[in-house]
């Protein structure tokens, strides 16, 4: 059955697209050999590269009309082929998400899917061959333009090639899910459609895309368009034959395909479970692409896309995407960035593992002298050796050049004399998490450093104000809370203590930015944001097992969140001792709302909760762990406990907002996404709490107005 529509079928879409930034379809004729003509369509929204081409309803209709016109010209014998390319550096960054967010109903969502399919499908019915010259960035719907064409070339310098839809809670629904596996084989397609989006939205280089078979030819940037036109000329004249090594054959379709789908399903099952819908929809579509014809594939994509676009998870994902793309770059509550002091030398107090990791990060990102210190030379030497060893490793992996290695190695020095901190303008401590120790360290440092040198503490559980109690100039102290592993986790909670001044705060934010971290400003309250929320979850989880609920029931209760790991796995990951300490400090601060757990201290002595096999996979709960927590007499059902988790979190987050811990619910969500890996489909936390009714139950309102939810 053909895939046919009329322009008028899409009037509903155009109705809410009046303000779309339209990517125009400009057509120019290009002369090729033997007096023939190639019609070259340029997609260009008329903006510079900071506003990439995007694809909304108006854009698609204009593109469809341009293609219709070329089909007519082809019929008259005026053109030998049609090619599509983009504006400089960019083909298209995909569907216009601002428009997708405005889709008012599931039916209109389906229309959006259909319009894309119907438009792109014209590339295969022009009567002459179609080409897409991917001259730069191509994401999602941008990639799918190429997939719908007969032939593809790619610029070796293209910034990124990806189908990120699953990352955003949808599926490649303008042909990608059906066309890609049929072009490059199921295993390659799984990598592009599923694996990469789930690996923190990894993208492909142009060379990788070419190697996978997503392009038939790859050319360098200096002459990309000229070479692509010449190549298309060769294809049209028959002098170039295109072979597609990765295109699936019969055996792949019947044998390899189901196996690959099974393996991928198992991976999704173990990593994500069944909460997130988009990976499963994608798997379903990829699976059926082995046997359905193209237009049936398109129709299946239409249905999947309609359901997902209209659903809660996509709304939450777009919200979350917007947070990490925009809010993360401009911390709410930040003072004028121009106030920030220039950092020319960094001091790190301590030479242990954490201190060494700080030093490594600071020297790599800030490229200024970094001084570490400890009580004895042996520890200092060990720290320096560690840092230089890590730099050597970076060199051996080709991540830094030999010159850079020499530069960075020379910048790192160690001392046992705190007087050497005198010319540091930023000193961060990484000493033992004990108030008296930190107070003394800073009081001592203050004897040597300049009056306006900024002091930063990495405390996770102490009051920054208390740490600064012995300072003559407490206004220069700021909390600077990293997450482990320091080199990887993108979040820093920048804690504005009562006395922290604007210059200090601005400087801390600038440092975070230069470290390529995302900062969220918090007040000096216990646990700041991430640890307070995690303490709530872990405290409730331990309380449940302490009072007789089985470990498995606890896991089951919180499974609907779709978190990256269970509460007990998280406890083992952060360390049971650390976990127990976190619960203790929060219980001390908020005894009526946060549980402490003596049993957790006993589990910490045992050292673990789970039994694991040789590869580290969990095989069950250790019998001794069960014995430690045994004795509770008031077990809860999974349902009871889920409501307890949800309502407890809604209550606590509301309290945090009322208390001004951060500026807005968005900042809580941003912290949890970046610092704790909370999933996009939850929108971090608050959109989830709103949509399951927890906010209403806990405080009779919602965090967001209107709540972040789907239309269906």
């Amino acid at each position, binding site marked *: 059955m053909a895939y046919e529509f009329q322009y008028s079928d899409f009037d509903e879409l155009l109705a809410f697209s009046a303000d779309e930034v339209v990517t125009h379809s400009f057509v120019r*004729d290009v*002369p090729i050999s033997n007096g023939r003509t190639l019609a*070259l*369509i340029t997609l260009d929204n008329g903006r510079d590269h900071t506003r990439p081409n995007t694809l909304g309803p108006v854009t698609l209709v204009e593109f469809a009309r341009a293609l219709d016109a070329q089909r007519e010209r082809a019929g008259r014998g005026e053109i030998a082929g049609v090619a599509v390319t983009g504006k*400089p550096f960019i083909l298209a960054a995909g569907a216009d998400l601002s428009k997708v967010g405005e889709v008012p109903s599931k039916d209109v969502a389906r229309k959006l899917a259909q319009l894309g399919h119907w438009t792109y499908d014209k590339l295969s019915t022009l009567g002459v061959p179609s080409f897409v010259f991917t001259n730069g960035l191509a994401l999602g719907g941008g990639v799918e333009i190429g997939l719908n064409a007969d032939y593809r070339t790619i610029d070796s310098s293209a910034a990124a090639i990806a189908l990120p839809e699953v990352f955003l809670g949808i599926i490649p629904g303008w042909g990608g899910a059906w066309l890609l596996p049929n072009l490059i084989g199921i295993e390659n397609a799984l990598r592009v459609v599923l694996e990469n989006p789930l690996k923190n939205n990894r993208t492909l280089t142009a060379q990788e895309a070419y190697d996978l078979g997503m392009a038939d030819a790859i050319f*360098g940037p200096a*002459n990309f*368009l*000229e070479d692509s036109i*010449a190549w298309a000329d060769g294809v049209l004249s028959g002098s170039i034959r295109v072979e597609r090594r990765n295109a699936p054959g019969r055996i792949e379709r019947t044998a390899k395909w189901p196996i690959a789908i099974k393996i991928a399903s198992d991976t999704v099952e173990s990593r994500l479970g069944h909460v997130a819908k988009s990976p499963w929809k994608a798997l379903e579509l990829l699976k059926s692409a082995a046997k359905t014809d193209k237009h049936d594939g398109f129709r299946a994509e239409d249905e999947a896309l309609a359901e997902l676009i209209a659903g809660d998870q996509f709304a939450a994902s777009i919200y979350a995407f917007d947070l990490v793309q925009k809010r993360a770059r401009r911390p709410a509550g930040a003072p004028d960035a121009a106030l920030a002091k220039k950092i020319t030398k960094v001091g790190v107090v301590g030479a242990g593992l954490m201190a060494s990791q700080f030093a490594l990060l600071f020297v790599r990102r800030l490229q200024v002298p970094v001084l570490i210190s400890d009580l004895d030379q042996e520890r200092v030497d060990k720290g320096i050796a560690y840092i230089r060893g890590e730099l050597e490793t970076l060199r051996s992996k080709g991540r830094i050049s030999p010159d850079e290695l020499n530069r960075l190695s020379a910048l790192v020095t160690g001392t046992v004399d705190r007087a050497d901190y005198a010319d540091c303008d930023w000193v961060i401590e990484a000493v033992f998490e004990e108030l008296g120790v930190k107070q003394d360290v800073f009081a001592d440092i203050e004897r040597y450093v300049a009056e306006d040198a900024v002091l930063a503490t990495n405390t996770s559980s102490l009051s920054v104000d208390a740490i600064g109690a012995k300072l003559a100039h407490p206004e220069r102290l700021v909390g600077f809370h990293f997450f482990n592993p320091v080199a990887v986790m993108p979040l820093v909670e920048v804690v504005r203590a009562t006395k922290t001044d604007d210059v200090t705060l601005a400087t801390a934010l600038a440092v975070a930015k230069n470290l390529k971290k995302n900062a969220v400003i918090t007040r000096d309250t216990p646990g700041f944001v991430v640890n307070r929320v995690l303490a709530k979850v872990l405290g409730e989880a331990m309380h449940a097992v302490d009072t007789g609920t089985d470990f498995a029931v606890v896991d089951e209760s919180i499974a609907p969140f779709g978190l990256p790991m269970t509460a007990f796995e998280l406890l083992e990951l952060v360390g049971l001792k650390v976990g127990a300490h976190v619960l203790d400090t929060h219980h001390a601060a908020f005894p009526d709302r946060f549980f402490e757990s003596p049993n957790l201290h006993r589990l910490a002595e045992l050292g673990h909760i789970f039994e694991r096999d040789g590869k580290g996979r969990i095989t069950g709960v250790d019998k001794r762990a069960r014995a430690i927590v045994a004795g509770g007499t008031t077990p809860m059902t999974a349902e009871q406990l889920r409501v307890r988790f949800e309502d407890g979190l809604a209550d606590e987050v509301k309290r945090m907002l009322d208390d001004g811990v951060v500026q807005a619910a968005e900042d809580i969500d941003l912290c949890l996404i970046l610092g704790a890996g909370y999933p996009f489909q939850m929108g971090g936390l608050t959109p989830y709490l709103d949509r399951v009714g927890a906010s209403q139950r806990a405080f009779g309102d919602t965090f967001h107005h209107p709540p972040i939810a789907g239309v269906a």
Partner: protein
Amino acid sequence: MAHSPSARPEVVFVDGMRTPFGRAGEKGMYWQTRADDLVVKAMIGVLERNPSIPRDRFDDVAIAATTQQGDQGLTIGRTAAILAGLPKSVPGYALDRMCAGAMTTVTTIAGAIAFGAYDIGIAGGVEHMGRHPMGFGADPNPRFLAERLVSAEALNMGNTAERIHDRFPALTKARADRYAMASQHKAAAAYEAGKIQPDLVPVAIKSENGWGLATRDEALRPETTLEGLAGLKTPFRPHGRVTAGNSSGLNDGATASIIASADAAREFGLAPKMRLVSFAFAGVEPEIMGIGPVPSTEKALRKAGLTIDDIGLFELNEAFAVQVLSLLDHFGIADDDPRVNPWGGAIAFGHPLASSGVRLMIQLARQFEEHPEVRYGLTAMCVGLGQGGSVIWENPLFDGEKK
């Protein structure tokens, strides 16, 4: 070991390519294309056509531009080498002799080869007159005028062409127009016969209305008639003789060539298109710069031990028709001599200042292929501020049967 004069390395023109030449200005096809991109595309074109040369063997890259700022600045020979993908071990430099820039890059690379310093190099030029109008931003020393070293008129090329008419009354406007029309018609015929296209690199051109592809010179006017030419304004003088029709225009374009020692060409399995015989540059009064090629040609002939009668093909840059005619008259050659610019010249193709010298060589090389009976050819051009440049070439395909 020093080379004795008789044993100096032979220098050959291996190959050359160019971009199509565009019309300068906002309506021109290269308005949104960078000058450095143009010359890089010409370089890549000629490099890709000669893949047997290991890229790291190029000893130097000399690129000329008259106005060396913006996208023609920053030592364009070096930047173009990097942008064209040559190894970073290959050096490069920028050069300026106004209109004879590319010609001078060829002779400069040739000189280094003849000295034995180089084996092979790239020579070429670029001028984006739309982005860099001639003399734009220049700051002539006030002494030129105060001491009457050079009259103000000398800085305007049209005026210098009018001065040739003054000096040689036999060079009438009618002759200039007829010559100009012939240039347009010969160029059109050459395009029709596919003589020009093989040495053009197509250039993707950005515009407000999407990407296009430049595949031929933009300023060609095959429809030119004497009547049409007669009616054109004379912008440099009331009732003057120099018009837009009998002059080259304002253009954007780039050229690139590979110049090598004969030994290197052999080593890389190349078939050189021309052998360098001699070259010369000469100065004349800036006010009448168009006659510059006369003394430079005489000097080059003398150095080569040849006479004008030995020259079987001429590629003369047509900055102005009258300026070409002054050379032809000087040497007693007819205005319509078939040896002269057989495929037309700059009046038709355009004259992006510092790039043009290599275009002359590209066309002479092609004509050598078609004329094995011709042994020697001349490329010559006038240069602003009163200079001429001439290079004499020998046809490697010469078969000894002089017609």
